[in-house]
């Protein structure tokens, strides 16, 4: 895409800050409508707060429990980030191994698929038995749940190198390691970033699901997931929903971070095959 094309694009889609803010208006409008509807439903049907509290009650609960929620979000966030980071390291390593030999690929790939098909909720209790009601167990479960997209996309990236570039490296007598380091990995970074975008959302889900289980053990651990199960048993629906919003924000924060990181890293690749 030439500069001219890009200028054209920015005119049509409004890349200016004002244009971008304007694009947010419909989405924000929808949220406002949803909140108003929610309030109306609660009022009209006179729903008990234990079933569905009003938006205002949720807001108040959020304020009242703000410090608890923030601490919990911090813990869950830390677990999610650790698990996610581990999945990037482990996933990339596994993918690098698989890209280097057909034998390894044939041996490992079925298990990678298995990792995807086994419902993680089924493994979680087992991991708790092995690793205990601990922070590290949450990280471990997060790792397992967010690993697959990384392995999959990085392997794809490492394998899908344009043939002429491979020939170029062969022509210059590049070793297997040089081809990996100077050709396959730089090509795969784009794919890694795509995997990361899927994975970071899964990491937050993984951390919260893990906390459901860890919380059941009455451990000295207070992430968003443990708070939620606790408030559920106590019938405190309003803070439960507030915690739900907190975990959504956590997911959005992670996604935004990965998105910014990837567009910074990938600025060189833009508009290039």
């Amino acid at each position, binding site marked *: 895409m030439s500069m001219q094309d890009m200028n054209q694009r920015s005119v049509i889609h409004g890349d200016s800050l004002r244009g971008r803010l304007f694009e947010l208006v419909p989405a924000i409008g929808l949220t406002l409508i949803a909140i108003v509807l929610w309030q109306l439903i609660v009022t009209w049907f006179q729903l008990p707060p234990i079933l569905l509290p009003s938006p205002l009650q949720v807001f108040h609960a959020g304020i009242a429990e703000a410090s608890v929620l923030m601490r919990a979000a911090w813990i869950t966030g830390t677990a999610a980030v650790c698990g996610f980071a581990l999945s990037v390291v482990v996933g990339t390593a596994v993918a690098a191994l698989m890209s280097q030999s057909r034998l390894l690929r044939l041996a490992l790939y079925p298990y990678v698929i298995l990792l995807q098909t086994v419902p993680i909720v089924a493994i979680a209790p087992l991991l708790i038995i092995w690793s205990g009601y601990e922070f590290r167990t949450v990280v471990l479960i997060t790792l397992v749940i967010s690993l697959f997209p990384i392995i999959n996309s990085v392997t794809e990236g490492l394998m899908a190198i344009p043939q002429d*570039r491979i020939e*170029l490296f062969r022509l210059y007598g590049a070793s297997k390691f*040089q081809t990996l380091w100077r050709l396959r990995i*730089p090509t795969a*970074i784009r794919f890694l970033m795509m995997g990361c975008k899927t994975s970071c959302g899964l990491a937050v889900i993984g951390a919260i699901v893990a906390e459901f289980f860890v919380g059941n053990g009455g451990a000295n651990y207070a992430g968003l997931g443990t708070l939620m199960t606790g408030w559920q048993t106590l019938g405190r629906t309003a803070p439960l929903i507030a915690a739900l919003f907190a975990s959504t924000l956590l997911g959005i924060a992670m996604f935004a971070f990965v998105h910014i990181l990837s567009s910074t890293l990938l600025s*060189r690749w833009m508009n290039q095959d």
Partner: protein
Amino acid sequence: MINPPAQAKLGEVAFVFQQPTLLPWRSAIDNVLLPLQLRPDSSCADDTKSRAKNELLAMELREDSLLLYPRQLSGGMRMRVSLARALVTRPSVLLLDEPFAALDDMLRVTLGELLLRRWAERPFTTVLVTHNIGEAAMLSHQVLVMQTGKVIKRFDNPLPWPRDEIVRTSPEFGVFYRAVSDSLYGEKH
């Protein structure tokens, strides 16, 4: 350009593809550095860097373009980088697979002249595959006309050196062009 005769060892052959085949995450100069970095005996970094730079400047890439990425370069500039990358290894054999096919006629002539200039400074054997008769006539010592994978005619190029504007506009050029063209299309054209 069959002079000196080919005596290539592994790694002394360079290849220019039809497409520039640059790595998009490397700047122009880093793309030229690549073959030097892939060598087991890669010498000191300053030396290789200045070699890559000189090679790009010899291809008449402007100094302020050296750090640009492929997507920021025009098609002609990308091909200059690609040629510089091939020549930076100082190959004894240079294989060119229609490197100028995607370029306009003026660029084609300019890059051909640059290639001749580099060759005059440090001769290497070149095999150039092309569909352009004028290009073949201007750049070669010998022209092999191929049809359906077989060599059907072989010409020793009679045009004098150096091959400059005067040669390209001379009657001899026209005569040789016609001879090659006839062998390719038959004489009725």
